[in-house]
């Protein structure tokens, strides 16, 4: 895996800005994508992720900034002079051609001998698990199958870069989960550098080697799924990925933050005392078990609300400790049963210092 940054840079994006009239869809975006890695552009709709992908493809060329692919400056080139395969959310399969014809479409243009084309189509269809569907028309296939055909067609010419634009968004939840694994597996086997655009965090977390979180035309954070989830650099990332409690607070000393009437110990990362901050912690990181008396960051609270979510309970904790704010915590079913918790129960919870994150407020 090239995610650690020691691999070769395959795609070098520098200072990309895309203007639509006076609106900046991309603002000064720079990014390196390494050879063979799987990168996801993740963000809410309108964040610029698709614009960035289309700029890389040359479909909507950026206003300024450069794109280098494999050492070649492709900034101004039309799509036909770039080296990529692309899969769209709509699949864009040619409806009047059979699956086989769709897959061979890009090959026929290369004047290859016919049996060679046939062999390659067979190989590709086997790769995506559709070896016996070559004579069907796209309309006769399920959505998931169509998406696999689109994938095979995009890979047919062995492009150096595979671009996936929300490839799973049009599919049913079950199929989506299944295809997720399949695409990732395929990419690993072929080793093609891949960029996927998605608004689905679960998709990004499960598939990507690295995730690029975007908002309002800028990159918020680049990192492995674990980094993005565990150490969100901005409150936007923290909020967008997973669930997160946000409580206003203030840094009162080095390694100490105050929310309401409670002081907590946590890394303050150089934020000077007196600064207003947003204190963030994930519900699953709040601990109510095995609390030793001498451990810090203990807070006495009351359960205001208890919501059953299948494999766990989400408790809404309140009380004077948080200065009127509520904080969600996830409790295992086991714990709720053992301690006989219910609405109104008092409970002491621990905020592990290493899981508390602070974001400066202004």
């Amino acid at each position, binding site marked *: 895996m090239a995610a650690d940054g020691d691999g070769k840079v395959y795609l070098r994006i520098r200072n990309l800005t895309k203007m639509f009239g006076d609106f900046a869809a991309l603002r000064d975006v720079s990014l390196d994508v390494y050879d063979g890695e799987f990168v996801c552009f993740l963000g809410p709709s309108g964040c610029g992720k698709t614009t960035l992908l289309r700029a890389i493809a040359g479909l909507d060329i950026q206003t*300024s900034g450069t794109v280098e692919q494999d050492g070649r400056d492709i900034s101004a080139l039309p799509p036909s002079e770039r080296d990529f395969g692309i899969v769209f959310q709509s699949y864009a399969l040619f409806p009047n051609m059979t699956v086989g014809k769709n897959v061979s479409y890009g090959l026929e243009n290369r004047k290859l001998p016919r049996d060679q084309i046939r062999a390659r189509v067979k190989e590709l269809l086997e790769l995506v698990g559709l070896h016996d569907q070559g004579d069907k028309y796209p309309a006769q296939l399920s959505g998931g199958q169509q998406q696999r055909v689109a994938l095979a067609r995009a890979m047919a010419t062995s492009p150096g870069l595979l671009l996936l634009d929300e490839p799973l968004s049009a599919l049913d939840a079950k199929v989506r989960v299944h295809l997720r694994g399949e695409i990732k597996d395929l990419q690993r086997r072929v080793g093609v550098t891949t960029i996927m655009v998605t608004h689905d965090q679960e998709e990004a977390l499960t598939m990507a080697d690295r995730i690029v979180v975007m908002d309002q035309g800028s990159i918020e954070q680049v990192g492995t799924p674990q980094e993005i989830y565990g150490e969100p650099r901005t409150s936007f990332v923290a909020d967008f990925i997973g669930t997160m409690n946000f409580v206003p607070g203030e840094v009162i000393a080095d390694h100490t933050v105050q929310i309401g009437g409670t002081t907590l110990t946590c890394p303050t990362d150089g934020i000077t005392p007196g600064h207003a901050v947003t204190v963030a912690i994930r519900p699953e990181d709040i601990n109510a078990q095995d609390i030793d008396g001498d451990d810090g960051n203990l807070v006495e609270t009351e359960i205001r609300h208890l919501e059953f979510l299948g494999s766990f309970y989400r408790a809404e904790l309140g009380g004077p400790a948080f200065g009127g704010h509520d904080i969600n915590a996830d409790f295992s079913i086991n714990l709720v049963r053992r301690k006989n918790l219910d609405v109104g129960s008092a409970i002491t919870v621990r905020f592990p210092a290493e899981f508390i994150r602070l974001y400066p407020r202004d």
Partner: protein
Amino acid sequence: MTQAAVQAAAAPRIKPKVSRDDWIMRACMGVIALFLVVAVLLPLYTMLSKSLENRHGDFIGLTNYAEYFSTPALFLSAVNSLQISVIATVIVLVTAFLYAYALTRTCMPLKWLFKLIAAIPLLTPSLLSGISLVYWFGNQGVAKHLLLGESIYGPIGIVIGSAYWVFPHVLMIVITALSITDARLYEAALALRAGRWRTFFTVTLPGCKYGLISAGFVAFTLIFTDFGVPKVIGGNYNVLATDIYKQVIGQQNFQMGAVVSVVLLIPAVLAFAVDRIVQRKQVALLSARAVPYQPQPRTSRDWAAFAFCTVVAAVILLMIGMAQYAALIKFWPYNLTLTLGNYEFDLANGGGWDSYHNSIRMSLYTAVVGTVIIFFGAYLMEKGRGFRAGRNGFHAIAMLPLAVPGMVLGLSYIFFFNNPANPFNFLYGTMAILVIATVAHFYTVSHLTAVTALKQMDAEFESVSASLNTPFYRTFLRVTVPVCVPAILDISMYLFLNAMTTVSAVVFIYSTDTTLASVAVLNMDDQGEIPFAAAMAMMIAYTCAGARILHAILTRGIMRTTQAWRTR
């Protein structure tokens, strides 16, 4: 400017490289745009400048216009045109609305038959309704007494004849407008206990408001600029379109013809502009999640609708039926023996069988050449990459012909192409110029049909084929054309029917070698050979009906053979 905008302005702008495909596409689009410039813009310009000149070609400013507006006989025509257009528009709009309502919102029987009958006027030149009216209500007409002493030759005849031939055009628009209404609105109205009439006025009418306005403008423009009906049945009642003809063909006063053309052009352009604005609003009403309305049976309403449609359908059948009868009898009203003698066109003055054959040739050329040019042009405009200004400009030029009345276009052609100094002068008097004029005249509607079909295709086909390094023309021929075959057939059918029936544009530019059937109808009627005219008009009707049947068979066949991939 935002901060990013400032940054972008500072950084060197990326100038996208134009690929070979892009160059070819732009060049092709340029050629088609040039065709439109030569076939529409330049002739119009020549005509406009002619209206500012005297007989010797000297510039005299607005003198011709001053003369026009101070000549009561001429100015009166403008008033007449407006009057009959407004009256006929109201009549046809109300009739078409009720007819369309019956077809879309009731459970009356025989809907397919009523739809079929309503399309009949499309198959004939507008002249035919005039001829038919002469036989019904003319001086020796069978039902003359119904007019209570009024003459059919004049406003009454023009209004009835116009309403007849414009009916299907208006009906199509109103049916579309009524079909796009969302059934959920009716369910909501029902749940809120709104009565039938309240629902009609608060849901139905507002829902198709824009469609009705649009239909009104289309009807107005068609009637206002029509030449065939007033020519045959107008008598001494002058309207603008016949004035142009009289000025040019009768008095050889080309300058005054140009002035009248401009007077005719202005309301047409205005109506066109308003219609475009209204139609843009209508699109916003459509939502992808709308549920189609399914009418529930209700005896009283359904039978009332059936009765109404029967009356309208009967009028249509009586019109075309009388024309057919007129074509088959020996000597109206004295010898009613049936004969095929009226089909021996070579015995008549005004155009023999040759003109019929010319019409067939001209219509086929128009259908083939026109479809290729128009569809390819629409494709280049719709699916081209970059070059936004050029593509928008192309769309604007392609929309223009709809605003230009046929008479105006035809007269412009005389001015432009008959000029010996014009390098295109060699076209004058040929079959080619008739084809060019007809393609140009009916360009816009075909263009819009093509654009609609192209918009329904996945926008990413071109992106995918570019990523696969496939030249655009390959994808165009292998994907776009096969997928759009139904629309392509529709366009060629539309062009063929219109080429067969049009009179207005071509009446100025045919030559003795290229007489056309529709013009022959006009000339035969002019010379009193009305049975021949009726027979020739019926020949056109048979041909158009045949073409439509062929079109239906072809479309159905193609739909069946391609069913495997069209189901979605």
